């Protein structure tokens, strides 16, 4: 029963979007009727449905619900129905207004999926760039670098502090391990 009640407003909205003017005019006339006669409408707001429709109620209707609940809560609490208790709690401390959750449910999952997707895309780009790139130039190899060292010694390159100096202990041009 509750599920039916919760489902009904959404259904009405969806059909309103689809079938257009007739529905819109119908809901508009309902709304204007409600705002014209808030006091007459007071008993018409069912407390069992307050949670589902609280956000859509006008300020006047919310006021009448508040007043209704104030009267109800003056009674013995053991005689309250579960719907009345729920309505009292929801109106006072429910997730609406300042207590509305900042993120709609499922946000964490959405963020996790998008982040994973973009990290995966980045990884794929990296792997593709590494695999599709030209091979490194022939001068970047251990053999070439050792040959460079020999040539530097032949030429006595940098004889004061560099590779051809006395007691030189560095690697010269060799950068490979």
């Amino acid at each position: 029963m509750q599920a039916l009640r919760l489902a009904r407003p959404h259904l009405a909205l969806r059909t309103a979007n689809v079938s257009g003017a007739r529905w819109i005019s119908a809901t508009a006339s309902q709304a204007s009727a409600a705002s014209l006669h808030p006091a007459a409408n007071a008993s018409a707001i069912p407390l069992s449905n307050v949670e589902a429709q609280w956000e859509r109620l006008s300020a006047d209707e919310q006021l009448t619900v508040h007043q209704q609940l104030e009267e109800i809560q003056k009674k013995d609490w053991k005689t309250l129905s579960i719907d009345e208790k729920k309505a009292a709690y929801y109106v006072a401390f429910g997730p609406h207004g300042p207590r509305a959750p900042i993120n709609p449910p499922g946000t964490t999952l959405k963020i996790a999926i998008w982040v994973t997707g973009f990290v995966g895309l980045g990884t794929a780009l990296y792997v593709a760039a590494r695999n599709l790139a030209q091979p490194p130039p022939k001068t970047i190899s251990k053999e070439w670098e050792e040959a460079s060292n020999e040539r530097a010694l032949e030429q006595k390159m940098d004889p004061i502090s560099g590779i051809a100096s006395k007691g030189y202990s560095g690697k010269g041009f060799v950068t490979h391990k």
Partner: protein
Amino acid sequence: MMRSRVLPTLVRARPTVARAAPTLVRFSSGHAQESFEAFTERYVNFFQSAQDLFEVQRGLNNCFAHDLVPAPSVIEAALRASRRVNDYATAVRVFEGIKEKVENKQQYQAYLEELKGVRDELGISTKEELFSS
């Protein structure tokens, strides 16, 4: 003659008040720690004399803001206060507050057991009981 008589009086006229050593007290550190029992008693008294919903909710905000879980007697006083101001939602909210403050579910269950009497007497359901179905 005159001079010799005047001089001692002048000397005597100098203020001879002993200079008091400055008392090095930090007034900010002078407060005593309130014991848990004193805290409990203070809030039981507060809730017993709370007049309206605003006072009750202000007291709840204050007593749940400390680094402790209020004693069951405080909770009971708060529940009776919310009964007195006719606000069922606040009574339910008190249990939500306890659930936030305790360290684990066993402690929460212990609080529920301890307060079962007053809960049944006043007809207070917890949020879980209300919204589980």
